[in-house]
């Protein structure tokens, strides 16, 4: 028998306000793999991201999501994050009055404590994590993402430009060290220089761990910087095509409309 995959989505149907958005998604991600999920606006990409993160407004009507072999649908969002799932939001929320540094400290503390407990359960011992180490780590990661020092004292995403918000999301990912990261349109709103910096940061994290990634994007652009192992095209709540990196190039060339026609033709031919 093969090893349990890191992450499996099986026949996932999701509704919001009684409207079905995802209509049977299947997706398997193994340790260290990079998957790109591409599709036109409104096809359900963010819905999938939210459901993975445990957003309470979305109702799973059928199917399962398994992480390390466990069904996660009953897990609270914080539990999912503590166990190693991460979502970089397409539209990060602004929370007034909450400073980036105090928020990050609390997030890292919770995730680290949960991880230490898990390690202890397996008979190991986690290294203690001091505030000093936290500050060091934060400085290091901010440098990597070319972020200004003042950033730590600012309120969470308040007054951040689009690019700053996206960097802030990746900074959080870098600090929380997830095992599966879902990046929802992290490339949108970034100019080419920022895109380079962010991609380098993401690649560095990926290379230094066995973190797996699900990159949500509707442009090929990001994939020039972060190379996917697999590409999935989603339309109207279903995955309609799957392939290797070459699929993204084909999509770039043909556009979504032609892919849609191909799919329709193939369906009619059956």
């Amino acid at each position, binding site marked *: 028998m093969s090893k349990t995959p890191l992450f499996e989505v099986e026949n996932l149907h999701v509704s919001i306000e009684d409207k079905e958005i995802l209509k049977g998604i299947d997706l398997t991600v193994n340790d260290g793999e990079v998957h790109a999920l591409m599709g036109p606006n409104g096809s359900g990409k963010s819905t999938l991201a939210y459901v993975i*993160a445990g957003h309470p407004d979305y109702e799973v009507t059928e199917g399962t999501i398994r992480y390390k072999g466990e069904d996660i649908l009953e897990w609270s969002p914080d539990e999912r994050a503590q166990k190693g799932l991460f979502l970089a939001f397409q539209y990060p929320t602004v929370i*007034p009055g909450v400073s980036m540094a105090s928020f990050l400290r609390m997030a890292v503390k919770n995730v680290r404590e949960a991880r230490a407990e898990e390690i202890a359960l397996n008979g190991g011992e986690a290294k203690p994590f001091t505030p000093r180490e936290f500050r060091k780590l934060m400085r290091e990661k901010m440098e990597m993402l070319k972020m200004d020092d003042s950033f730590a004292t600012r309120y969470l995403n308040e007054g951040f430009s689009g690019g700053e918000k996206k960097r802030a999301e990746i900074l959080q990912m870098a600090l929380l060290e997830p095992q599966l990261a879902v990046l929802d349109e992290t490339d949108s709103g970034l100019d080419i220089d920022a895109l380079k910096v962010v991609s380098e940061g993401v690649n560095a994290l990926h290379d230094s761990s066995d973190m797996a990634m699900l990159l949500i994007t509707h442009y090929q652009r990001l994939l020039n910087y972060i190379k996917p192992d697999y590409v999935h095209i989603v339309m109207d709540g279903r995955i309609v095509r799957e392939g290797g990196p070459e699929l993204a190039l084909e999509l770039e060339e043909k556009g979504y409309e032609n892919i849609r026609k191909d799919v329709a033709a193939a369906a009619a031919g059956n």
Partner: protein
Amino acid sequence: MSATLTQETGFSRDAVVALSEMKNEPTWLRDARLQAWDVYESIPMPARTDEEWRRTDVRALKLGNLHPFSPNGHKEPSLESLLSGFEKGGVTDRDAQAGILVQKDAATAWAEANPALVDQGVIYCDIDTAAREHEELFKQYFMTQAVPVDFGKFEALHAALWQGGSFLYVPKGVSIEEPFRSFTTSTHPANSVFTHTLIVLEQGAEAFLVDAYGSETFEGQSLASGVVELILGKASKLRYVQMQDWGRDMWSFMTERATLASDATLNSLHVTLGSRFSKSSIGSHLQGEDALAEMLGISFADGDQFFDHHTWQLHESPYATSDLEFKTALKENARTVYSGLIKVSEGAQKTDAYQQNRNLVLSREARADSIPNLEIAANDVRCTHGATISQVVPEHIFYLQARGVPYTEAQKLIVEGFFRPVIDRIPVEEIQGFLEGAIARKVGI
């Protein structure tokens, strides 16, 4: 002299006499108390038909069951034991304070002032001592200007039965950075505490005083009826912080008025956390040109607490500025009222007045009312006000949870974030730390 414990309940002329006798007061002082008693008797109990009391029901307070004052306590062996009930609001570094006063029930239990300041003419003592040793100053300022005896029913009762309290006098040009710390506590059920703060700053003087009120929760009802008078001379600067953390039996009434001469600056913060019922009336009279009053408020109500804050920005002279920001969080069945008036007198041109009240409602059952008011008799002014009542945004909670922060901690972060802009305006770490701790306790961690 034997301290007579009044076992009688209810307020009476006899109680006023008994208090004055217990304190061995001179005749003029006893007479002043009795005159105030007459004023008290002549004023009807506030009714809900009065605009200021429209949302505030005092009928459930049974004055007849209360002891009008509790006996003169003896001095405690240590400051630490006296302040044990004040948690982080207590004094962490005694040398960093300009002076410390503790009022326990009707008497002063601790009094110390930095001798170097006393040498410069600074007076920091309880009101009893002020009346005895600084009679002229007392007669000039005590309930004569900022809050006169006939201000209202509870103020008159206060004038008849005041006890302990703090008097701070800073002479011309003397500037003190370290805070004066006044603590008031109540240690009996069915108690009445009439604490008074009188601060007088002469021209160019600068001072900082922190008033902390706190007690444990006793059976039945208790009464705190406080008056605060802040007299700011020309170009003086006062930072005044009041932290109210009474036990849940307490019915608290507090009336504060500041008068600001020209170029004076007041920075005040009122923190309301405790009591069963709390009604605060907080006002600044901007009487001189270029006076500046910054008035901040933080309150957090839970359970069946009722808080009522009335604020008054009274512009009586041109070119003055007032900047008010009051924030309230509520949970469970709590109920709060904020009502604020910006009043600009005729001739107070170039007034710049700002008033903001924000409420964060954390439960379905809690209810906040906010009533901003403007009354403007000058034509060249800038007055802005705003009020909001909102709930925690679910997307905020989700975002924090998605980063591994559990629900209650996420809520705590959000409530702290709600208060943060006000906390950041208090440049005193000790108080910031106290507020953070108090908010965390209230949210329920």
